[in-house]
């Protein structure tokens, strides 16, 4: 069997075991509501970033427009609950499919652009959607959607007094999204994504329809981002355009993934594990008078990681692995010559 495939399987099993251990333990170990909140946010942002990872990391199309899909998902659920007074689930599905369709419509012309032009076009798109939602009467514009009180439970996916079901909910979302990415990695689609990312001309010359591949990645990625958005609004009880459809939200997805390691399955999780606690705890510690301290630290981390190790935390880990493997190898050679002739 292919050696590269075996390594990936290895790591995934570790992850799976950790996840299995976490699930039953959380309610017993973590009684602190704030800590639960942080854990939920970690899993949520890891999921969001993982969905971006499909198009930005694996396919190599760095788009800053992903918050649009996140927002569409949030509004999908929100509209169902607030405007139509029903359970969120139909809204979640419609939101996700809408996000996919919008992604393809936007993606098709944008993919004709190269490099920086593409990136800037994605900024422009976020800003356009942001302003549009601010003035769109149907979605309550700048006021946003505020959730009314509804019956607690899985039917409405709302709880007021406990965070534990939210934790399980986001965990399921996390496992689903990571599972999808894992599948992509191991099959033809993932290889095609990598080929398009590495060298589009070469990919085309061996029969890969790069436009189709990019659009498919875009559609899947948007769908999953929308699901995350839906979870967000169910957890937050409220949504408005600046909260979800902003450039800074887009940057968050990008940064978490890059910091953790774009194009790797664990990257988004690593990134979220570092940045979310940083964000939440600094806000808690310094929120009032510190103003921006957490963002200063955030900024410094970004600069340092991006400059020293553009492959992020996973890049650092793999470098350490190589380093230790080299040491092991030289040890081994030493032993051979000592023991042998």
């Amino acid at each position: 069997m292919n050696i590269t495939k075996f390594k990936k399987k290895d790591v995934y099993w570790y992850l799976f075991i950790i996840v299995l251990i976490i699930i039953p333990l959380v309610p017993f170990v973590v009684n602190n509501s704030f800590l639960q909140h942080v854990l939920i946010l970690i899993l949520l942002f890891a999921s969001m970033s993982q969905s971006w990872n499909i198009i930005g990391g694996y396919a190599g199309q760095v788009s800053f427009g992903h918050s649009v899909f996140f927002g569409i998902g949030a509004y999908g659920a929100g509209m169902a609950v607030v405007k139509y007074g029903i359970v969120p689930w139909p809204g979640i599905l419609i939101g996700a499919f809408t996000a996919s369709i919008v992604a393809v419509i936007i993606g098709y012309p944008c993919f004709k652009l190269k490099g920086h032009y593409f990136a800037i076009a994605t900024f422009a798109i976020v800003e356009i959607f942001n302003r549009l939602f601010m003035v769109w009467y149907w979605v309550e514009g700048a006021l946003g959607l505020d959730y009314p009180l509804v019956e607690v439970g899985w039917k409405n996916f709302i709880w007021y007094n406990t965070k534990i079901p939210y934790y399980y909910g986001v965990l399921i979302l996390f496992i689903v999204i990571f599972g999808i990415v894992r599948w992509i990695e191991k099959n033809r689609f993932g290889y095609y994504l990598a080929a398009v990312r590495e060298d589009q001309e070469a990919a085309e010359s061996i029969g890969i329809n790069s436009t189709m591949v990019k659009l498919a990645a875009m559609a899947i990625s948007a769908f999953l981002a929308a699901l995350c958005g839906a979870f967000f609004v169910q957890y937050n009880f409220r949504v408005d355009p600046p909260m979800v459809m902003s450039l800074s939200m887009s940057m968050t997805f990008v940064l978490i993934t890059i910091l953790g390691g774009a194009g790797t399955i664990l990257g988004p999780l690593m990134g979220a594990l570092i940045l979310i606690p940083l964000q939440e705890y600094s806000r808690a510690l310094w929120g009032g008078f510190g103003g921006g301290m957490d963002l200063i630290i955030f900024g410094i981390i970004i600069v340092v990681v991006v400059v020293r190790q553009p492959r992020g935390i996973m890049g650092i880990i793999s470098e350490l692995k190589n380093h230790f493997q080299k040491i092991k190898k030289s040890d081994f050679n030493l032993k051979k010559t000592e023991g042998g002739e």
Partner: protein
Amino acid sequence: MNKLPLLEVHNVTKKFGSLIANHDVSFNIEEGQIVGLIGPNGAGKTTLFNCISGLYKVNEGKVLFKGIEITEFPPYRVAKLGAVRTFQIVHPLKDMTVFDNILIGAYLREPNNQKAIEIAERCIKIGYLSEVKNKRAGDITIGLKKRLELARALATGPKLLMLDESMAGLTSTEVKESVELVKNLRDTGITFLIVEHVMEAIMPIADKVIVLDGGIKIAEGKPEEIIKNEQVIEAYFGKKYSKKLQAAKGVEKSV
């Protein structure tokens, strides 16, 4: 039984602004042939490749493959149909292993992982790449990169393989190996269109040779005819030198 030519090139013209890179080029390739495409630098050989493979849009003319008109097809469609090209400046997928590079080629006909892996393994053996199978494609030598490009194209199961200077930069042993490889592959049913400067690599094995100069096809025929063709000699050596050559050879011309 008159079989359709595998590749038909009809009056292809390609211009870049006022520069005419290919002018009214026409030729056919029959199934099972090894056809050489030669000519001095700048003759338009790679441009012609790019026109056939869909990377460039022709200004005039038609290209037919297996009887289907592929003139307007994008590169991936041409490849899917079975006409696959390699690049003069190699394009390995640098960060992936040699094996993965070839696997991606295999995936064109075979979406199933297991079967694709089998095809890739076979192509690794054919391309003598077993030793570097798991190395990063960007790290291997240029000779191996060229073989990788060939093996990757092979994995896509092509009917026509278009090689663009795949012998450049190889040692003479490597050249001999590659020539054997091409002959063996032709015997398995693959047709070849090969651009070459390394004459030992193409002249001995070609069924026919097409010569381009300044964008125009100046000759087409068997290798032994081509090397005697005056226009071809002039194209490579220039008018003055070829006149000297004629004079040195003696009376052949006046008779």
